[in-house]
């Protein structure tokens, strides 16, 4: 079946109508190529989310951003830094003050020997402290980047930002291939303009690279190996704190000190005991979120670099605008001069 829609001097099959001038025939061929170009661009936009597995990956990115939200505040991150400092001060004071006191008062030669769980914490604490502090510094340093990327539209919507304009373009291109419609050309221009303006409206040129920086910073954090290390460190902290709470403080009491005296002489140890449950309340959900989001991070990291995202909109948008402009400039002349153009086309 041959469609014989009129295209300003050429039918859809490109056959020149004998009565039409050569310029009009050239214009018709170019017009048809541009229509095909719009179709290809639309198909490309539709295909992109599938090629990048955005429908699977982008919602995981959205989940990650949502699940990190409760932790990504200055107050919460400062709180974690404070908690690490409380643990560190308590562990240090046990070694520097409680140990000598118990040695003198109760003849305990070595706290680490008498209380192996404390000994393990004391020996591993410098490394744990460095790791946790470095991790928190890194997260805190990316708070602004997180906020930027979280301020973008939900990642779950991202695939649709490609598919919907893609469908509009594909449809427009198919219509244009059959008939010259001013309205369709306008639609192509609007879609193109939308694609160009969307990244500007959503501040993607600043926010997307910020998200990229955050992803780079979290590369060493959101790994199964790192989370397992943190879980191991947590085990050491919990055991060691338990030894302080359940063995060493009672040993001080056995040596004759009352609770108020312990608090006065060893305030850092007292503070660690007093804060421990709060520290657990605070820290374990963070470890949980880190662990749960390893696959989400990996899915997000498998997407194209964030900094490129605005260009994924702008480049097709500019191309569309150019195509629409080109067609638009020729539309009145072509339709007006086309022999056999319908009244509708002339309008």
């Amino acid at each position: 079946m041959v469609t014989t829609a009129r295209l300003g001097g050429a039918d859809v099959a490109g056959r020149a109508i004998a009565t039409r001038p050569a310029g009009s025939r050239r214009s018709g061929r170019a017009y048809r190529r541009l229509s095909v170009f719009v179709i290809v661009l639309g198909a490309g936009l539709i295909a992109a989310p599938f090629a990048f597995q955005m429908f699977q990956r982008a919602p995981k990115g959205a989940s990650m951003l949502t699940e990190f939200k409760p932790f990504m505040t200055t107050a919460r991150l400062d709180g974690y830094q404070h908690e690490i400092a409380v643990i560190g001060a308590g562990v240090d004071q046990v070694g520097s003050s409680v140990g000598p006191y118990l040695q003198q008062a109760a003849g305990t030669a070595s706290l680490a020997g008498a209380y192996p769980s404390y000994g393990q914490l004391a020996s591993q604490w410098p490394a744990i402290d460095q790791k946790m502090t470095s991790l928190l510094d890194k997260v805190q340093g990316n708070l602004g980047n997180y906020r930027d990327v979280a301020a973008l539209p939900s990642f779950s919507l991202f695939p649709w930002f490609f598919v919907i304009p893609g469908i509009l373009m594909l449809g427009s291109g198919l219509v244009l291939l059959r008939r010259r419609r001013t309205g369709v050309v306008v639609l192509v221009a609007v879609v193109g303009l939308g694609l160009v303006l969307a990244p500007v409206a959503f501040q993607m040129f600043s926010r997307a690279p910020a998200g990229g920086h955050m992803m780079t910073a979290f590369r060493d954090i959101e790994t199964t190996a790192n989370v397992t290390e943190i879980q191991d460190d947590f085990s050491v902290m919990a055991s060691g704190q338990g030894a302080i709470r359940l063995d060493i403080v009672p040993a001080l009491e056995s040596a004759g000190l009352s609770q108020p005296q312990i608090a006065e002489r060893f305030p850092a140890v007292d503070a660690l005991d007093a804060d421990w449950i709060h520290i657990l309340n605070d820290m374990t959900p963070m470890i949980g979120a880190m662990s749960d989001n390893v696959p989400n991070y990996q899915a997000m990291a498998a997407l194209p670099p964030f900094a490129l995202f605005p260009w994924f909109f702008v480049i097709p948008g500019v191309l569309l605008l150019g195509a629409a402009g080109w067609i638009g400039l020729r539309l009145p002349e072509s339709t007006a001069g086309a022999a056999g153009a319908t009244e509708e086309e002339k309008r």
Partner: protein
Amino acid sequence: MRRIVSIAFLAALSFAAAACGGSSTTATTTGGQALVGTFTLSPGSCSGSSPTGTYFRMITPGGSVSKGPFFSNPDSVCPDKTYTLATPGTDGGFLTGSYQPDPTPTFSSDGSSLAGRIVAPQAFTAINFGISTNPVDPQTRLSVPAPSISVSNGQLSGQIEAWSASWNNQYFNQGSPKPDGSHPGLTSPVSGTYDPTTRAYVLTWASEVVGGPFNGFTGYWHLQGIFEPRSS
């Protein structure tokens, strides 16, 4: 016509049997006898050379059920603090054929579990954990059946998908199989022994924690006690 009458008769018979209930042991599809009632729990003890009664251990990621390494609970009363002993809760143990849900609220202000029907809440690194079975698993949000255990030739089997530990304002499914029917990592089927004369039982299983701060850890559960059939 005769076929319809036969089917109606069988249906009526089945309905009557179900309505009468009362029987605590019924044949299962696997050929064993379902034990419906309360698996009362003997308190855990570390007095012997190895722990007895009801206890729990947590295996760290990459470990094995037999060799560990195990998470050390400083609040354990055992010399080997990798064993956390349990004492029976207000129901005396766990029920088969029905749920023992989390209370509302489930947690105290410090995150300690208030779920105390199956076992009395036990301290785990300063915060109490509790056990419950709920129609909807609180961690995975999946519907799960009530626990069911059956015996065949003195060997116990079954499912305990709904077994849920609550600790520090968080939930950890500790069932086997897991609520989606899988057996990830070291998760092992429920198994054990049952003496029909004394009704003494031992039930064990392992269940990997999936998700949350203890993701990849595995809980090993050793339950021991006497089975009390549900009275008719």
